[in-house]
């Protein structure tokens, strides 16, 4: 069995596309929250077949893009310290802070390891007992449990030179903050697939109720996306607003209690800074006091510097779904994937990078 090919089958897709066209009976704006959805929508060419009246805007769901300049600067300053070695997911390597990136730090001699899993960072720590290995925890609910499990493993195995710098973020809290913005007129939310596999479809219930917002949890294949969009359109057309789930093969109502338990064993909610959105109370996760020995921010006494965002960069407005990349004076001119000014152009899941790669003018 292939779990993806069949979801791309033309025989399945065509009627679903027809259904989508029939479902859109009045104009609506849908926000896709997740960066992986943004990429899937472009890669599958979905924008070209959307009915008139259905507008897609990209939201704040690329964790790299919402990592603030002060956090990037703190990461880079930490990588520059002697005896410290940082381990990161690859897409963080070229994200600019206020003065350069981890790639620049690496080229001047800082130890930066790109890993596929936080567990790989723990292995690096075990193999390099003379260095403090810090994993940069950047991500949403999909990633947080993997980091929690790694901290747990470090505790069980008594690895004392492994730390995490947590800028982990959660999804429903900023969505609540964002949707309260009167500038942002959104009728429906394409809810993230893998974040929802952890937190459950129920996490969007308060948003549906408070904002009268149609919510559908979507997978990443063409059939999932087209079906989800028509369900959103239908909810808006009939006024029967609720949370629906097209990704039932991976997401259920309650989520993954085992992962949730692991996360709240290690982490607790805190205020955190989002690029372009500012500090959103209760939207981050920090390491609990009883696991402080693994908290790089405590161990290395790191203060976040005050930094200004790059001049002219509209990533903040783009992350809020208020502007599109073409509105930005830097887009495709001074800011390109080869020479990114803002984080939305760096990550492959960033809105600007997706627009640039798929030639949206």
């Amino acid at each position, binding site marked *: 069995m292939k779990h*993806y090919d069949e979801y791309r089958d033309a025989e399945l897709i*065509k009627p679903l596309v027809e259904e989508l066209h029939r479902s859109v009976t009045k104009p609506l704006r849908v926000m896709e929250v997740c960066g*992986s959805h943004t990429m899937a929508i472009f890669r599958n060419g979905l924008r070209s077949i959307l009915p008139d009246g259905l507008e897609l805007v990209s939201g704040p769901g690329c964790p790299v893009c919402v990592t603030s300049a002060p956090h990037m600067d703190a990461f880079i300053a930490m990588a520059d310290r002697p005896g410290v070695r940082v381990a990161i997911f690859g897409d963080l390597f070229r994200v600019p802070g206020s003065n350069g990136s981890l790639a620049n730090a690496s080229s001047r001699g800082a130890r930066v390891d790109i890993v*596929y899993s936080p567990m790989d960072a723990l292995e690096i720590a075990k193999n390099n007992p003379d260095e403090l290995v810090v994993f940069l925890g*950047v991500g949403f609910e*999909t990633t947080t*449990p993997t980091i929690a499990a790694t901290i747990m493993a470090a505790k069980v195995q008594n690895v004392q030179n492994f730390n995490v710098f947590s800028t982990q973020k959660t999804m429903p809290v900023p969505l609540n903050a964002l949707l309260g913005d009167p500038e942002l007129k959104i009728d429906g939310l394409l809810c993230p697939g893998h974040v929802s596999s952890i937190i459950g479809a129920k996490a969007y219930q308060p948003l549906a109720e408070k904002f009268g917002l149609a919510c559908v949890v979507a997978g990443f294949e063409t059939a999932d996306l087209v079906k989800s969009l028509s369900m959103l359109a239908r909810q808006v057309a009939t006024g029967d607003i609720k949370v629906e789930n097209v990704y039932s093969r991976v997401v259920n109502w309650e989520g993954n209690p085992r992962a949730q338990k692991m996360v709240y064993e290690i982490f607790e909610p805190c205020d955190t800074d989002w690029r372009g959105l500012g500090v959103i109370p209760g939207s981050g996760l920090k390491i609990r006091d009883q696991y402080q020995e693994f908290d790089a921010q405590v161990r290395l006494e790191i203060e976040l510097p005050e930094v200004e965002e790059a001049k002219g960069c509209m990533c903040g407005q783009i992350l809020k779904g208020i502007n599109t990349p073409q509105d930005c004076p830097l887009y495709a001119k001074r800011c390109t994937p080869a020479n990114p000014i803002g984080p939305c152009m760096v990550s492959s899941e960033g809105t600007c990078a997706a627009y640039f790669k798929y030639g949206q003018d």
Partner: protein
Amino acid sequence: MCLAIPMKVVKVEGNPDDFTTSQLATVDADGIQKEVRLDIVDHWPNVGDYVIIHAGFAIHSLVEEEAKKNLALLKQLADTMPEELLTSPDDLK
């Protein structure tokens, strides 16, 4: 970053209730095999199940039946449209 892929479980090691055991599965996709952690998977998988992998961890076990049911539902919707399941756009206005 949150992209995660389904892979087939070919071997399982460890005990779901004991975190001191190695909780590992060997997974396979098109002949490429990889070891992944099972610490946070929602249901302990059996050999032959599929798991969704993110950052070296299985985050969800995907039972073949569940996936087939989901696909069948989409297919059923596709096959029976527009007569049975669709309201005409005029009814929605």
